[in-house]
């Protein structure tokens, strides 16, 4: 019955931490099934040890069109089982890949997960971890010690902090199992069930035409001074609720889910507070993956732009910023979901193009009066144009380009808007764009610069 399934989702999740320590039955180490979260269908499997008995659940999820949630706590291949366990991995990996873009896949890591088992979460859309009790690594500290002679703890090697702040493998970390499961339930409400479904619309109490007066003064007068893009995002979205993805990794870009007039939206914003909001390798990859998820699952994209450009330097060039920056460019260009962009301040150079510009088929591109759409900042531009010569051309450059008018005159921004009206404009646009239909030319698949 319905009630049982509902209880199943909650209880299975909560029981998990207990079971892992007590349960000794191999047959019990995988539990699969389906249930409802806030009335909506979800497929769930949990695994204590890795056994290849749960690919049916993924096959069914793909056929029905409902998300798959994996609760992982797996030590890796059972050496006793030999090659069979390797085959078991591959069965799952294949299904992860086939489900990708079809139904949302979420992994919650609730214990140590080592060896081949880590690749299943890595193939899913979101990986969440539990602080202090969950680990993800290819090989544990003992093997590391014997191979590379490095002394490292489980936590340092593959704990929640490592993967959410350093490696970017995990997307969020939560305090304990219960906290993680409750957050997962909340997160689930943002997602459509499959690529066949529109972004869900929840009942909303926050008026869609609410003015946000503080936005008129949120951007500082000096263009070098930082502000917090999260302030802007929270004040615009419904009830200040923003489910941030990867909040501790590549913090110069902010991505996450929110609602506008009840409808799920994906938000991408440069964060002037961190590294001036520039784009670098990590932030490009973080942004690109998020944009592609939203595009795959019909979630409109709202982009807040304050970007001084790509981060210069040998570290970035040697690391392949060109290749990685191209991912974000590719993702925005390819996306066919409604795309709304608000330039709050700087939109310089190639980074301007990348950040969901009009040229990449933006549906509504707005500029605040503080916007500066230019090839680069006035100071740098004048230094290059008048190399080595004393000049007062900086003021002229500021006059000419450090404002939104040149871009507006050419139609690169659709309107210069009063910041306080931003929420209202976006909500109206989303209503209209709800029926947007756009397709890319047929192909087997595109070739994103991986």
């Amino acid at each position: 019955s319905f009630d049982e399934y509902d209880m199943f989702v909650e209880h299975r999740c909560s029981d998990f931490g207990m079971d892992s320590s007590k349960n000794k039955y191999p047959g019990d180490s995988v539990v699969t099934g389906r249930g409802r979260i806030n009335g909506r269908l979800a497929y769930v499997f949990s695994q204590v040890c890795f056994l290849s008995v749960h690919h049916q659940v993924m096959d069914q999820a793909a056929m029905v069109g409902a998300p798959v949630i994996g609760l992982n706590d797996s030590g890796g291949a059972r050496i006793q089982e030999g090659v069979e366990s390797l085959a078991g991995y591959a069965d799952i990996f294949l299904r992860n890949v086939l489900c990708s873009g079809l139904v949302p896949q979420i992994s919650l890591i609730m214990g140590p997960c080592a060896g081949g088992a880590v690749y299943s979460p890595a193939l899913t859309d979101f990986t969440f971890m539990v602080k202090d009790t969950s680990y993800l690594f290819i090989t544990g500290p003992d093997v590391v010690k014997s191979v590379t002679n490095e002394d490292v703890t489980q936590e340092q090697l593959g704990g929640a902090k490592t993967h959410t702040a350093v490696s970017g493998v995990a997307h969020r970390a939560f305090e304990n199992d219960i906290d993680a499961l409750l957050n997962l339930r909340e997160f689930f409400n943002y997602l459509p069930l499959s690529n066949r479904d529109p972004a869900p619309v929840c009942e909303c109490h926050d008026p869609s035409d609410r003015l946000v007066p503080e936005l008129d003064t949120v951007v500082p007068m000096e263009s070098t001074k930082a502000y917090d893009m999260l302030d802007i995002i929270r004040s615009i979205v419904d009830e200040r609720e923003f489910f941030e993805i990867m909040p501790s990794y590549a913090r110069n870009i902010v991505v996450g889910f929110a609602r506008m007039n009840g409808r799920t939206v994906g938000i991408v914003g440069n964060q002037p507070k961190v590294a001036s909001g520039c784009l670098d390798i990590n932030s490009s990859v973080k942004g690109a993956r998020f944009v592609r998820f939203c595009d795959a699952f019909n979630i409109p994209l709202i982009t807040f732009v304050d970007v001084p450009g790509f981060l210069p330097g040998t570290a970035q060039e040697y690391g392949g910023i060109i290749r990685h920056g191209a991912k974000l460019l590719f993702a925005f260009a390819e996306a066919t979901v409604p795309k709304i962009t608000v330039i709050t301040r700087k939109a310089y150079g190639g980074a301007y193009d990348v950040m969901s510009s009009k040229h990449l088929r933006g549906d509504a591109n707005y500029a605040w009066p503080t916007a500066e759409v230019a090839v680069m900042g006035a100071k740098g531009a004048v230094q290059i144009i008048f190399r080595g010569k004393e000049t007062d051309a900086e003021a002229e450059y500021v006059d000419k380009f450090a404002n939104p008018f040149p871009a507006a005159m050419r139609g690169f921004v659709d309107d210069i808007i009063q910041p306080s009206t931003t929420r209202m404009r976006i909500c109206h646009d989303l209503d209209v764009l709800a029926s947007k239909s756009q397709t890319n030319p047929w192909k087997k698949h595109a070739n994103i610069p991986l």
Partner: protein
Amino acid sequence: KASLLFFSLQTFEKLLIANRGEIACRVIKTCKKMGIKTVAIHSDVDANAVHVKMADEAVCVGPAPTSKSYLNMDAIMEVIKKTRAQAVHPGYGFLSENKEFARRLAAEGVTFIGPDTHAIQAMGDKIESKLLAKNAKVNTIPGFDGVVKDADEAVRIAREIGYPVMIKASAGGGGKGMRIAWDDEETREGFRFSSQEAASSFGDDRLLIEKFIDNPRHIEIQVLADKHGNALWLNERECSIQRRNQKVVEEAPSTFLDSETRRAMGEQAVALAKAVKYSSAGTVEFLVDSSKNFYFLEMNTRLQVEHPVTECITGLDLVQEMIRVAKGYPLRHKQADIPINGWAVECRVYAEDPYKSFGLPSIGKLSQYQEPLHVPSVRVDSGIEQGSDISIYYDPMISKLITYGSNRAEALRRMEEALDNYVIRGVTHNISLLREVIIHPRFVQGDISTKFLPEVYPDGFKGHQLTDHERRELLATAACLYVAEQLRSQRFLGTPRIPIAKSKRNSWELSVHLGDGIYPVAVSKDGSSFSVEVDGMKLNVTSEWNLALPLLSVTIDGTQRTVQRLSRDASGKTSIQFLGTVYKLQVLTKAAAELSKYMPEKAAEDTSSILRSPMPGAVVAVSVKPGDMVSEGQEICVIEAMKMQNSMIAAKTGKVKAVHCKAGDTVGEGDLLVELE
């Protein structure tokens, strides 16, 4: 009607306000009413401030630090010339009692809205003012009428007068540079701190010492005088509720004064005003002991922060009267025309944390801000709006909240309602303290003194203490909010491809954590209202459950409560402002709560070996270096915020492991300063 009258009077055409924040806005309001054009000055961080938007013209006078902007006389004089302002209203603080500023204005032929240089000088100097008061037959406090040279002399004088003594800056005011000493050691320390603070606040480190009247009331008389030798007293203001010698709650009239004492104080105040040929509005502060003996404390030659309560009970607009007097008009009123109509109470709403020494400054951006103007007879004097920054550069006052009633009980009841309906998000504020003060039985009876806060809260302020029933109300509210949120998260619009399974559930077994307690709460939905069982009692809870509104009106068994849900998260954690105080709760289903037992305990940080900054500010001095041994209670460093110096002490005896700050650093709240081993 009133404004027609002003148009017929010749007045200033353009007036510059040499101030910021609420007082600048307050002055601009009256100028608008009188048809006077206004010029605002501002520092660069204040470019978008409310007073700048309100004024007809605004000019930047320098960078954020006050010494370079609002105290920058050269820049301000330049603006006056450029804008051709004919008069200057200095507000309070900044240049309001600066005789040099008044002199320079006079030299340029610009009218200073305030008394003349002579009166500012005489009253601004505590030593001179005391002599003047004595000569004018005003009661004064016994003390040493001279400047104290050094700490040794301070100790000698203190012994002569007899402890306790008050050490204060000769040029001081507003509680700055003021210390009380009960013995020789405290006198030395007080002398050191006061002279430092006096030097940094007023550029004048002269100190004087006088007898400290223990447990007095602080009552002041508003006077108004013109340039024709007329002077009036506009009744008293009771300002006894103070922390660190700064006022928090004020009211007019005072519950303590009988009409005879009031008249005696008023007449002495007027006598003093006349003795210095005072003109404009001014305030004569008195200390009043329990036998209604009153002693002259000081005269403030400016508009006071708390002037609105006087305006409420007398019906006068003090700023307007100041402008009239400055233009040379004689007073419009006779002493007999000055009424006491009703009762007015003012609460100073500060961006500060009342749990730390009754208020340490907090900074931040006002992410949400809504004044309780829908409550009747409420006046809010503020200079900020949603989105404003409360910075470390200026006074952390958010607003002055004034309520008025036909009697004290009515004014206080409205204050309670106004405080509950005040939405301030993004900074820590002192609403909880204000609300506790105004409902405290001692305050309600009028049994107050300047020691009210330390006496009532000897272990520091800890927020509202819930009664059993109030706790049940809070638990029920939190549980219902949780259920309302859960129900809403199941309501999707549109027709999904896979039908949503509608939950038929209408009862919830919850477990609510509040403080150290865990309370089982059962909620069942009963039509549009909730029936809640907590502690074996059944409560009926109704509300609109509009979860987006900052103010939530909840009716619990017929009692209406305005609560604010400040935050919530997916794990059931929520903070709710209830009866003024913010409570942290966690609402879980019974099943989840039972499983919580199996969650590993997280190790807490040992806080005794680390010293964190309790507030944002600047490091003035660091007295230790790595390797030093410190004993518990020893001073480690001094943090200055909003011109107040605070000594940070060691929480335990030990060796200094690392020092993370140096003199001159700017630190934020919670920043690590020093680590002990």
